[in-house]
């Protein structure tokens, strides 16, 4: 097919926007940890831009979007960007260069790996993170991306995931939980040490860049600059705004309307709308945003009552927020929005909820289980965690030889 320059402009800038989410996340996370671990936390996200950026073009794209093998994994036909050129693909995003589609997808892989690191900050060895990221990317991310988007078995099942609720958020959230349990809590956690955020303005800068970039994430996932892109764009903004507002009120109900709270609420709303943005009427962003806020807020409080130090609540926000979003897609989907979609529960098709549930369960189990295995293997080989002294000194100095 012919390249549509408008579509390509939109997809290229969307790719750039999604790229910017990773530094945004670095700041969002970096602001939340203690001063002595801020750089190390930033580094955990930033390294993904390098590492996954390279692995994606070497083999990741091929495993995810290459010729399907039994619904399970992609082939090697795109290895090293072979056959990925300036011509459109015949299957994916047929109005833009194949290279555009490839890099847009690559940005998703990068941020997914970065998201997980929120669970392991302030105590995981940098070398262990690198090794983990390589393996996890290869045997968890790529297969799931293939199942959902690359012509794998979940695509064929008919479960809907517009922009990566399953592939990115549930996946990252469950993996985060597994790693956090394996690692154990930070020294001093629930034991007097002040784990408060080092730099709240960084949290808001980070959240703002995430919100900004998410327009590329969701509206870019329309793969054209059509009405569908606008639909996803508007739905995204509505859900983020609603969830931010709602979290602020919840926060206030219990205490005060905090800046870190409203930022977290916005992110929860962005997560929840991700799988739905191109399948629902934009105004449905309101119930989805409200749901995201309430569910994630209480789940976070619950998690906080346990001994599980899932430090920056990746599971609560992305895992559970993503799960809510996937279910909400099943509830609110409306075929009039997107002819490639189907109707959901409120439009008379309860079966979609079932399919969504099935895909959720699959990802929960696969992500958690595989991450557990990879984590265990790393733990018994090179070790997951820094030494006690290193943890006390802080990871900035002990892992990276630098301080803010």
């Amino acid at each position, binding site marked *: 097919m012919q390249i549509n320059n408008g579509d390509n402009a939109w997809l290229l800038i969307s790719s750039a926007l999604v790229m910017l989410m990773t530094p945004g996340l670095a700041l969002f996370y970096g602001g939340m940890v203690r001063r002595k671990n801020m750089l190390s936390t930033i580094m955990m996200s930033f390294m993904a831009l390098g590492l996954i950026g390279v692995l994606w073009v070497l083999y990741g794209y091929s495993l995810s979007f290459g010729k399907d093998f039994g619904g399970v994994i992609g082939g090697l036909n795109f290895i090293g960007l072979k056959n990925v050129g300036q011509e459109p693909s015949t299957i994916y995003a047929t109005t833009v260069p194949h290279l555009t589609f490839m890099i847009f997808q690559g940005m998703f892989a990068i941020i997914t790996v970065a998201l997980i690191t929120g669970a392991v900050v302030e105590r995981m060895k940098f070398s262990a993170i690198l090794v983990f990221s390589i393996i996890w990317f290869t045997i968890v991310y790529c297969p799931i991306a293939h199942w959902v988007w690359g012509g794998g078995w979940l695509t064929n099942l008919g479960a809907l995931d517009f922009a990566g609720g399953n592939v990115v958020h549930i996946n990252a959230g469950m993996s985060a939980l597994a790693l956090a349990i394996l690692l154990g809590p930070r020294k001093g956690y629930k034991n007097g040490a002040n784990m408060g955020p080092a730099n709240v303005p960084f949290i808001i800068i980070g959240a703002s860049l995430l919100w900004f970039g998410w327009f590329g994430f969701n509206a870019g996932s329309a793969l054209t600059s059509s009405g569908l892109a606008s639909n996803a764009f508007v739905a995204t903004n509505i859900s983020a705004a609603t969830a931010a507002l709602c979290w602020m009120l919840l926060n206030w109900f219990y205490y005060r309307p905090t800046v870190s709270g409203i930022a977290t609420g916005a992110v929860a709303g962005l997560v929840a709308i991700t799988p739905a943005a191109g399948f629902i009427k934009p105004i449905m962003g309101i119930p989805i945003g409200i749901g995201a806020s309430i569910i994630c807020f209480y789940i976070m409080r619950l998690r*906080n009552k346990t001994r599980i130090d899932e430090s920056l609540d990746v599971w609560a926000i992305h895992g559970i927020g993503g799960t809510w979003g996937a279910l909400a897609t099943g509830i609110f989907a409306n075929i009039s929005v997107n002819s490639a979609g189907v109707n959901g529960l409120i439009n008379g098709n309860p079966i979609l909820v079932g399919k969504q549930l099935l895909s959720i369960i699959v990802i929960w189990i696969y992500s958690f289980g595989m991450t557990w295995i990879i984590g265990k293997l790393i733990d018994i080989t090179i070790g997951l965690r820094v030494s006690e002294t290193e943890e006390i000194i802080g990871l900035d100095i002990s892992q990276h030889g630098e301080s803010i």
Partner: protein
Amino acid sequence: MQKIEAIIREDNFNPIKIALEEKGFISMTVSDVMGRGKQKGIALKWRAAEHRIEFLPKKKIELVVEDNDLQTVLDIICKTGKTGNIGDGKIFVMPIAEVIRIRTGDKGTEAL
């Protein structure tokens, strides 16, 4: 010679500085500290969990003066730094054994 350490409100710093200036006390060293008095500060909350930051930002002024000037300076700080509300701060006075000006090597009163 005596060293005066005054822990004051950030907003009172400027008026105190000016009041001291007017009487000729120009040299001083200032730093940002966090302080908590008898009122026990304020509890804070973060995202969904709670964490207490009970300390409020204060300015610490350090001033070394001759024994003669001590009372004058104390009076100025007390008068200018007083709002009457809890949190106005404290002044601590302690003896100094020696003062040296690095630039010249001058010692004692000379060096002030």
